[in-house]
């Protein structure tokens, strides 16, 4: 399983078709999701980011992310 720093994760913002998002330490590949076209989700959210905090106030929990393949772990650079 690949390790991603937040800086590395930011490269996968969907601009070249690959969209990864992180939640609770896991990195998910959402590239094939209709709801993540061009790395954008419901106007407000962007791929290439850790969405753990944003998910707390979202109208759905992390269960929907579990439908997508996990491609790595988000690691701290400290």
């Amino acid at each position: 399983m690949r390790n991603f720093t937040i800086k590395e994760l930011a490269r996968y913002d969907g601009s070249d078709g690959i969209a990864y998002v992180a939640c609770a330490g896991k990195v998910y590949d959402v590239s094939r999701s209709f709801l993540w076209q061009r790395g954008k989700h419901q106007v407000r959210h962007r791929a290439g980011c850790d969405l753990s905090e944003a998910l707390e106030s979202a109208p759905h929990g992390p269960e929907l992310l579990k439908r997508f393949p996990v491609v790595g772990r988000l690691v701290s650079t400290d």
Partner: protein
Amino acid sequence: MAKVAQEMVKKAGVNLDELVELLVANAAAELTTYYYYTILRVNLIGMAGETIKEIAETARIEDRNHFEALVPRIYELGGKLPESMVDFHNCSACPPAGLPQDPTDVKATLKVLVEAERCAVRGYTHICNLTTGKDHRTYDLALAILNEEIEHESWFSEFLGEGPSGHFLRRGETSPFVSKFLK
């Protein structure tokens, strides 16, 4: 141009561009759902399919009503619909409610229907959360639509055996919550 209406929304701290984009995305979801539900409804045949056809039809008509009700608010807030139908389809807030691989599989069709409604429930809850106490007119509209989407979800969920919904089929006219925006 609803200049003061826009000003009030901005002044209340709502990101107007973001809100308009969300309303357009949800209007796209409603119209595309209306289209996809037309295909689903046509394929709901046989003993099991016919049982669901009526609620699928009510949900289909109400989703079109939701589209009609959203459009004026989009323009009031300074937004517009994309000129291209393709762009409009692709900016939808919900994935296409396409026919399942086996169109005779009524349970699979029900899952498509319930997923579409759940996406809508999440979407309007999100808009209500963004506008509550700030943009009263959009909130009122989103809440009215949300009330109907929750009922749609309940109908389909009940057929999937997920538990009793406490709701019944519409008696009388469609869109009991949204109709005030259509007059």
